Every structure is written in C-alpha cells, then in structure tokens.
C-alpha cells in the first residue's frame, strides 16, 4: 500500500478532497497487488484516521476481451472461452451458455442422464468455489490452518473433475446438446466416497469457525446492508440471501430439472459479513444434498442428443460411415447455424445470478454474448459497504463479497 497523488479523483466529484476540508484525510491505494484483494483489484480509499470515508474500486486489470473473442468463435468453440471467465466455477459459466444456446436452437430433449450429471457437477463446482472462498476469507481474518482444510477438500473435488473430464480447472465438459463424454468406470465409487466424506469435513470447519470469537468479532455488524438496499444495488446470490431475501434462480426460474430436487434456500437476517459467512456454509451443505439426490437418481442412457447437425457422431461410427464422416467434418470445419433471435438465460452460480443475453444473427458464431457477471455487481456495492468501517474491515468485506476477477473484468 502506498499513498498516491490525487489526480485519479479528478473526474469523480465525491472522491475529490474539498479545499478547506478540516479533517485529516489520507488517500490510500490498496492493491492492485494486495493479497487480500483476491486477484487484481485496486481500491482507492479516502481515510479519516482509520475510518474509511469513501472507497472507489478500480477494476479492469484482468480484462481479456472474452466477450469479443466469443463473437469470433463457433458456437461450440466458445465454450472453452466462456469457461475461463469465472475461473473458480467454470462449469457454472458453461452451463449458462449451453442452456442459452439450446433455447435458441429449441432443443428440449436433453437426455435425463446428462441433466442429472449437469446438476451434480454444477453443485460440485459450487462447493469447490465456496471452499476457496472459505479458505481465503478465513486466512484474511488470520486463521491460517483452515485454508489447508478447505483446499484439501477442494482437491478431492478437482480429482473427481480430472477423472471425469481430463481437466482440473477448465473442464469444458458441458456441450450444446449434452455432455462431451460419459463418466468413466469407477466414477460412482469416487462420488460415493466424496458424498460420505464431505459432511464430516464441513462440520469440522464449522466447529472451528462458526462460533469462533475472533471470526464473530471481525464479521458481525461489519458491512451491513438492508434488503431494500441490497436489491437497489443489484446484489444477487449469497449476499442478497444474507440480507433476508429468498431469491434463488434454481427455485425462481428452474433449469436442468432443479425443480425435482429437494433443497432449501439458505437465508440469514443479519445482512452483515457474518450472515454471508453463515449462508455460504449452509449452501455448501445444501449443495451436498443435491449431489446426493443426483447420485440416487443417476439414470442410464445417452449423454447427448441424437442430432447429427448439432452433435458430432461417435468415433466408432465415423470409422465406417461416410455420412457420419461428413457430419463430423462439417461440424468441425464450419460449425452449425443458429436461427436469428435473442434470449436471456441465467443460472445460480456460486456468486449469484450468472446471466447471459445471447444474440444470434443466424450465423455459425454468436453475434453477441452479453454477460451479467454477478461479481461485477456485487463488487460495485463495496462503494456502499466500506464507508464507515475501519481499513482492516475492508479486507473482511471484500472477502465476504467473494469477487472473482476473471468474471468482473472478463
């Protein structure tokens, strides 16, 4: 951290230090390489003593032009790019994208096995993402060892991901029309192992943290926001639910068969950092319940639709069928066209409403994929949450917002 010049505030009326201001204000640039900003966030803080007067987050350090790239790839190819935005929950991103494209295509016969696997892996992703949040958030507050607990458990999830999809981080496993591959032999044993092991580990972490006096001291009453204000600031996901609003897209606008699962919307009335902490812990448990139910259903059958214009034929068929070879060639070399139209699709990502407004101009590439990144809107509320708190609390607030900068900056 270092004090900097005031020129960055020139264009911002409420950040400029008024001439004749008696208070002893200090301008502090926090980040962009500060360890507790969880990526590359710079927050310009105006301080009165140790109290924050105004906070202005500066973003854009991780802008990679994902939206522009998406417009220049075939519909299927874009999945790999889409995966890389929210890098802690890649499968949530691609689920949103494939659902949107499937709606534009009018595909309504996704096989039951694919749907169940999509739900199962979206929830595994949610747990993995919340575990990273838990580990780093606790570490920000000074609890070092919990990081190891959380990452050990996340490692088990990533092992399952790697076993099934071949990749630990960016799986690109969901495809338009289903899944890229069926699960390999031995998958069920691994998922059973995870289902059996997880509740105990979660309870361990709960025991260490939930009633921990340091955690409670640092989080209760910090970064408080009422339900009305949370709605006005466009907050979604665990942050909105921690202000007492029971809004969850899995219930409000169900997709992938979520209406057939039994799980609770976790809410908390406090609206402060501690409420968000508790909501995310509870959400991990609910996600585990959904995974368990998906495991119990686990139907057989194919994992992709049988439409050769959308999904390439299986390799064995390509080897002896001319027609299959042509289909494969056409899909790889020029993709498929999607009828003109636009659709808004949202899924409940680990951070909130992950939405995509996809426009097709009739070609083999998306005309425009507009993201509604939950972190972008959640992080913006730092302007409202930080003032009045201490500098050290800003770290706790950023942690409780759980931003991922791949997604904020895209």
């Amino acid at each position, binding site marked *: 951290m270092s004090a900097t010049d005031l020129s960055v505030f020139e*264009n*911002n*009326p409420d950040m400029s230090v008024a001439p004749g201001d008696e208070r002893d204000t200090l301008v502090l640039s926090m980040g962009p390489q500060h360890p507790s900003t969880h990526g590359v966030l710079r927050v310009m803080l105006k301080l009165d003593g140790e109290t924050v007067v105004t906070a202005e987050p500066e*973003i*854009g350090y991780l*802008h990679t*032009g994902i*939206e*522009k*790239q998406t417009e*220049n790839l075939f519909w299927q190819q874009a999945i790999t790019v889409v995966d890389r935005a929210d890098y802690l929950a890649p499968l949530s991103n691609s689920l949103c994208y494939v*659902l*949107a494209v*499937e*709606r534009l295509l*009018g*595909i*309504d016969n*996704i096989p039951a096995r694919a*749907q169940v696997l999509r739900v199962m892996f979206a929830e595994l992703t949610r747990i993995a993402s919340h575990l990273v949040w838990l580990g780093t958030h606790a570490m920000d507050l000074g609890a070092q060892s919990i990081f190891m607990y959380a990452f050990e458990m996340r490692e088990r999830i990533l092992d399952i991901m790697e076993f099934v999809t071949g990749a630990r981080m960016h799986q690109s496993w969901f495809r338009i029309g289903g899944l890229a591959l069926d699960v390999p032999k031995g998958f069920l044993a691994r998922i059973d192992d995870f289902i059996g092991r997880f509740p105990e580990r979660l309870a361990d972490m709960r025991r260490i943290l939930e009633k921990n006096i340091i955690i409670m001291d640092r989080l209760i009453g910090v970064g408080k926001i009422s339900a009305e204000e949370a*709605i*006005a*600031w*466009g907050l979604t996901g665990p942050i*909105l639910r921690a202000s007492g*609003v029971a*809004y969850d897209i899995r219930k*409000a*606008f*169900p*997709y*992938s*068969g979520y*209406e057939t699962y039994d799980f609770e919307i976790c809410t908390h009335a406090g609206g402060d950092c501690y409420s968000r902490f508790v909501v995310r812990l509870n959400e991990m448990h609910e996600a585990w319940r959904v995974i368990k139910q998906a495991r119990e259903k686990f139907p057989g059958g194919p994992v992709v639709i049988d439409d050769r214009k959308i999904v390439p034929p299986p390799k064995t068929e390509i080897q002896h069928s001319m027609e299959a070879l042509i289909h494969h060639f056409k899909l790889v070399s020029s993709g498929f066209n999607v009828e003109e139209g*636009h*659709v*808004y*699709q949202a899924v409940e990502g680990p951070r909130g*409403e992950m*939405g995509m*407004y996809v*426009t097709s*101009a009739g070609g083999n590439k998306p*005309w*425009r994929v*507009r*993201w*509604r990144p939950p972190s*972008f*809107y959640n992080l*913006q*509320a730092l*302007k*409202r949450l930080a003032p009045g708190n201490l500098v050290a609390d800003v770290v706790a607030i950023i942690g409780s917002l759980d931003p991922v900068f791949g997604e904020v*900056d*895209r």
Partner: protein
Amino acid sequence: MAEGAAPRADTSALLPQITQALGANLLEAVSEQDMDEIAILPAGLLPAVEVLRRDGFDLLLDIGATDHHPLTPRFEISYHFLKVRQATRYRLRVFPDDLNPVIPTLTALWPNADWAEREVWDLFGVRFDGHPNLVRILMPDDWKGHPLRKDYPLRGLERRFNPGGRMGEVPPVITK
C-alpha cells in the same frame, strides 16, 4: 419447452400502461420465450422505467449493449429488470441514434447502473446523459476506440514498441 426454460410470469397487463406512457417512442412489443420485451427510443426510457417501477420491478439486473453494424439502427441497449419476490423479468431494448448514441442515465434510480453504464460507454461508445462519472472502466484510461463495436478489429493492435506513443493509438475506427 427447452431445458433452461421455466414457466414464466405473465406481464402482458403492463402493456396498455406502457403504450399510454410512451406514445410514439414505443417501437414494438413482443412476448419472447424468456420474458416480455419492448423496443423503444431513448426518449421513452424514463417513462417506461417509471411504469415498471410502479409495477414492482425493483432490481435492475443488467444493462448490456449489442452492435448490429452494418444494420441500422446499429446499437441496441438491453435492460433486464426483475421483481425479486415474484420471480418476474422484463426486458427493454433501447435503440439510440447511430451517429450520436445518447441515452438517459438510470443512476438516480438504481445505484448499480453506474458501472454498467460505464462499461457500455467504454466498450461501445454509447453515452449516458446525466451520468455522474462517465469514464472508462475496463480499458485503460487513455485507450482510443470502443473495442466491442463490430468495426473494431479483433487483432491488429500489436506494433513496435513506441516510447511516448499511447496505447491503442493505431487501429481505431473504420468508418462506414
């Protein structure tokens, strides 16, 4: 019904009010598969939002833009609204002027419009009238051009190191 689609709430009762409030600024009203939407001119934005707010749409989900170049009208600014407690969505598509795209800001009504509008300005060059701090948000402050416009090249920015030169100086806009 597609896999992502859920039965959606009926918002057709809003249309008479909107028609009355907007008059000639209402271009089209469509009931899409995901939600009802209206296409309007910039002058109709604030009256339309007024009707939606009165009806209980309390959360501004997103402000995004699409460049339909070389078609005209070129820019489409899409607003998604949500009634949090009734799970109802509504979409506005605003079509500003091609050469001088200006739209009234919503920052006075929803604080989260701030960054969303800055992003649209940064990447598309659509201005928001009355925005308190309309500066770039994702691109560097001294960048030239608006990268998500369709006439902005995907590649071609790289050039020899030029001390004293400014970033993004080379390509910009291929005019129609």
